[in-house]
């Protein structure tokens, strides 16, 4: 009776010790964090005596993973952005238009003259003067289609062309739209990540959420607005031919053209061609600089194909104005003085030094393929986070002590066993959280406090069972044995059901709620482990040593 194999005992204590070791770094949070940061810096930037000294603050043979503190505890900014995937369709159509023109031009004899008609931005509507040539026109346009490059859209073509009388409509096919949406979101994600990395904050979380959303969490940043300035700008740079200049925002631009305002001259509008000569995608570098008058500007360099197109265009259009357009605003519209062959140039405007630096960062990181719409934003100041940590700490300690005292008063020595298990339990939760890189949030602290209260439940079930067995007149060893055996099904059923709710919370929740689900779920696992293994080993070891004739629970 009351046998536990040696290997089981060793295993149980080994798990406890491992848990304690994993949890230990969290007791010296700041010190370990500094040491970890310094170690990363050494890898990235090389060794310095100061960095080595900070690394030595924490012995390297000890585990050094820490529990991540959530935004609500550390302070920082949280943004949920939706990528306006449909933005891309219009750009695709504008890019397609010259191609369509080239395809139809040699067949004027059959299709007649054609003009692009005003219509929805994500379509090309074409009016041809000889409707009887429509089938030939459709054939030509359909010849421009290419297969969709995606797993799900295999076999489908990227554009759809349809005819209605003398109107030919071209638009992206549904399969292509899906593929394009996915590409757009992935590109946006990558560019947001690059921009945040350029600014260099620690441990940002940048994840895709659902089909077209991006979740961004940056600890330590001052406010969500600051973050929005970095990632919210599309930074779509184009070099476009200028058609005209005026002061009417609603002027009719003509098909294939658009009216855009000037960035720093209010009331001035430019009419430019929608299809640009070169775009920001062809940039290989951008650096903040100063122009010949000593005003802040941005230097840029094109890749070879961009340089060639830019060179050709400038050679052919000497004397015409030419617009540098950033996010549909004309930054400047110089007149082309001479052929510019080298593929590099300078953007001047009324910039401050900060603006030119920011613009260079944005251009380097690349343009967002589509605009972002911010659906949710949260800023938590570091003071509030610290207050929450402090309050949470005190509350946890008080809760802990109250439960410990209560258990001891109620169950005596067995209560002490349960208390040791409870302390181990908390250590195990922190150890597991550090191990899986979990995040501790304010509701997460509440989850731990709740676990403190509920963790004793499994022990209480066992102890009450032992009491009943003793009352029924069984001997101490037999009572303990029976107590554990009979309480097991209740413990398992009760905890499995609670665990189910924790899993659902984790799957459905986000942010802080998820943090709560994690600590609750871990707490259930560790409390079952400590109750049915750890306290049992303790009781058995005590029993073997003392061999009491009677026990009181």
């Amino acid at each position, binding site marked *: 009776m009351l046998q536990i194999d040696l290997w089981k005992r060793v295993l149980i204590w080994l798990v406890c010790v491992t848990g304690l070791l994993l949890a230990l770094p969290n007791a010296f949070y700041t010190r370990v964090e500094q040491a970890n940061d310094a170690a990363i810096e050494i890898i990235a930037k090389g060794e310095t005596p100061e960095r080595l000294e900070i690394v030595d603050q924490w012995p390297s043979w000890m585990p050094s993973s820490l529990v991540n503190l959530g935004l609500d505890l550390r302070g920082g900014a949280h943004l*949920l952005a*939706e990528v306006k995937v449909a933005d891309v369709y219009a750009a695709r159509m504008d890019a397609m238009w010259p191609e369509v023109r080239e395809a139809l031009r040699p067949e004027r004899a059959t299709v007649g003259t054609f003009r692009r008609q005003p219509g929805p931005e994500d379509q090309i509507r074409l009016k041809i003067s000889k409707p009887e040539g429509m089938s030939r026109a459709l054939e030509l346009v359909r010849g421009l289609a290419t297969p969709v490059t995606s797993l799900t859209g295999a076999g489908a073509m990227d554009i759809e062309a349809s005819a209605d009388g003398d109107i030919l409509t071209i638009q992206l096919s549904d399969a292509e739209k899906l593929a394009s949406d996915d590409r757009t979101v992935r590109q946006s994600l990558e560019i947001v990540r690059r921009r945040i990395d350029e600014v260099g904050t620690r441990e940002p979380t940048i994840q895709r959420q659902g089909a077209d959303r991006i979740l961004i969490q940056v600890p330590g940043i001052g*406010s*969500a*607005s600051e973050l*929005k*300035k970095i990632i919210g700008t599309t930074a779509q740079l184009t070099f476009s031919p200028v058609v005209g200049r005026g002061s009417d925002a609603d002027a009719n631009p003509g098909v294939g053209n658009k009216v855009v305002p000037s960035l720093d001259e209010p009331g001035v509008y430019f009419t430019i061609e929608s299809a640009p000569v070169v775009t920001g995608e062809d940039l290989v570098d951008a650096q903040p600089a100063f122009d010949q008058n000593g005003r802040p500007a941005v230097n840029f360099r094109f890749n070879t194909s961009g340089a060639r197109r830019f060179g050709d265009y400038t050679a052919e259009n000497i004397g015409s104005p030419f617009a540098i357009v950033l996010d549909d605003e004309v930054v400047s519209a110089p007149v082309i003085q001479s052929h510019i062959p080298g593929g590099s140039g300078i953007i001047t405007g009324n910039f401050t030094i900060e603006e030119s630096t920011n613009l260079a960062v944005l251009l380097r990181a690349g343009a967002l393929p589509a605009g972002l*719409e*911010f*659906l*949710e*934003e*949260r*800023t938590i*100041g570091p*003071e*509030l986070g610290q*207050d*929450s940590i*402090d*309050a949470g700490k005190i*509350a946890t300690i*008080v*809760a802990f002590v*109250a*439960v410990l005292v*209560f258990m001891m*008063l*109620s169950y005596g020595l067995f209560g002490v066993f349960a208390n040791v298990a409870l302390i181990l339990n908390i250590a195990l939760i922190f150890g597991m959280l550090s191990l899986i890189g979990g995040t501790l949030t304010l509701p997460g*602290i509440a989850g731990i*406090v*709740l676990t*403190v*209260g*509920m963790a004793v*439940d499994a022990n*209480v079930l066992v102890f*009450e069972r032992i*009491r*009943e067995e003793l*009352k029924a007149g069984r001997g101490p060893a037999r009572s303990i044995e029976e107590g554990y055996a*009979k309480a097991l*099904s*209740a413990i398992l*059923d*009760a*905890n499995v*059901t*609670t665990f*189910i*709710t924790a899993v*659902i*919370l984790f799957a*459905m*929740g986000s942010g*802080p*709620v998820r943090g*709560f689900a994690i600590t*609750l779920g871990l707490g259930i696992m560790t409390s079952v482990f400590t109750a049915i293994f750890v306290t049992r080993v303790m009781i058995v070891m005590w029993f073997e040593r003392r061999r009491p004739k009677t026990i*009181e629970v």
Partner: protein
Amino acid sequence: MRLKLVPAETSFDFFGKWKLWLGISALMMVVGFASFMYQGLNFGIDFRGGTTIRTESTQAVDVGAYRGAIDTLELGDVSITEVFDPTFEEDQYVAMIRIQAQADGESISGEVIETINATLDAVAPGIKFVSVESVGPKVSGELVQTAVLAVVLAIAAVLIYIWLRFEWQFALGAVAALVHDVVLTIGVFSELQIKFDLAIIAALLTIVGYSLNDTVVVFDRVRENLRKYKKKTLAEVLNLSINETLSRTVMTSVTTLLALISLYVLGGDVIRGFVFAMIWGVIVGTYSSIFVASTILLYLGVKRDWSKPSNTTGNQFANIDA
């Protein structure tokens, strides 16, 4: 000498007035539901969109002056409340400003926040925004759906688990208790107009978990006693089981409440609503596992002989007193 909250041997009669208890529960549920229908929940921005700003200043909060300043910005419906908490420092004055969702689907813009900050700074110099949270109406709608779905899924999952582990009568009893707890919690939130946000949904699900924990422990004992005492009536077995587990029920509730109350008092105002929901849930959950779950079980009846196939199939009410 041991601290004993419950005498070693109890024989309370929990079912003598079972109609009364069910009646009280039903009445409370009706009141809770009516309150919910009549005045509705005080939804936080998570669920209805909008912006909350938590301000901190070293000078006392003058709600009137704040309101006067913000009203000039014409942001629509604005509510301002001062927050008091024992954990605050002496010269720490905190207010919560809530602004309704703006017209489009987006969250509030940074410029607007800066304007509000500048405007408030004029009436309360040195005011700091320690947290700003803004949720666009587009997301908040989805959050409501997800939250409701989470609660329904949790209850359904539990129903299936208990059905598999016990019998369907147990599952129904447990779920009735859960619905009872959820309705009463929503009712108390609507009656007291406490802010109802995402964290409260987490609390609701925890209450579901806790209440279930309690119910399952009682049911486990019922199952055991049904096998042990074949001669006793179902009412007697239920009563015996509840009495036998009473000490444990009280112990666990007290330790959990001890922990929660310390968090309620000392944990700061940010999570007070959340903790309140859990305290309420523990009390209601404990009550419901005895007076709702078990009573429903008594009403539905249980197949007594677990080893043989039932001979009363099709008439599940027949063997209440078998």
